[in-house]
């Protein structure tokens, strides 16, 4: 069924879905902002960020604020399109029940 096909495996995890949700409505977010909003550990967040990065759904930009390294994340065009598809599929699944 096409509905199920649109459910994206990459998003099939609460934290990844959370990261995408935050990045969809913000131009960018840094690691600490994601960590605070999602209430997860560094390692946990890093692994999920990596998964989204590997899928090329998010972009990573490393820079320095003063002397502190700062990592900013933002969505890619592909990531936004896939996220929207995923949400649509979720909504259809809910409405069909």
């Amino acid at each position, binding site marked *: 069924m096409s509905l199920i096909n649109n459910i994206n495996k990459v998003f099939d995890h*609460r934290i990844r*879905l*959370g990261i995408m*949700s*935050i990045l*969809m*409505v*913000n131009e960018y*977010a840094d690691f600490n*902002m994601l960590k605070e*909003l*999602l209430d997860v550990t560094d390692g946990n967040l890093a692994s999920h960020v990596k998964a989204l990065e590997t899928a090329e759904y998010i972009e990573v930009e490393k820079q320095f604020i003063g002397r502190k390294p700062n990592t900013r994340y933002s969505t890619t065009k592909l990531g936004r399109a896939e996220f929207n598809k995923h*949400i649509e599929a*979720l*909504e259809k*699944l*809910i409405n069909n*029940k």
Partner: protein
Amino acid sequence: MESKDYLKDISEIKDLMNKSSRFISLSGLSGILAGVYALIGAAVAYWLVSNSGREYLILDGTIFRLVMLDLFLIAFFSAVTGIFLTTKKAKKHGAKIWDATSKRLVINFLIPLVVGGIYILIILNQQKYGQTGALMLIFYGLALINASKYSIGDIRYLGFIQLILGLICAVLPGYGFWLWVLGFGVMHIVYGTWMHYKYDKK
């Protein structure tokens, strides 16, 4: 996964989108108090001008300066009350008062407001006083509409009301004082009360 999980996913997505992009700890009570300050300030200005021996306001030193001071005090006390009550509310909710969302809100609120304020001061210097009330209402309305994207969306409607009052005021500058009282005084109280019951009383 069952549909219950999907529903939970959707609501979590919405919650995160709101929490990460909007600062929602604004206090309704501070709106009510800002309205009260505006009414008191307006009464003081009215008393000052009507006791000056003239029916209208002109730039004749003391009276004008007192009215300006009066306006400044209204803005000052409104801001202090707003910051104080909003900090209190944010603490209660465990939200941070000065984070990315509140910074964005303040910056976007201040852009139209500061530009408008400077513009008003410039034209007052050029001896054009007739449109002051209208300009204050219009720029304040624009500031609210601009800020609404980063806070409780309902602020937008208050912004539209201020804009409409401002435009009416531009056409009827003779009623400037009363439209100002309506916009900054009465509307703040009505609006703050509505917000208080909608968001704070939970």
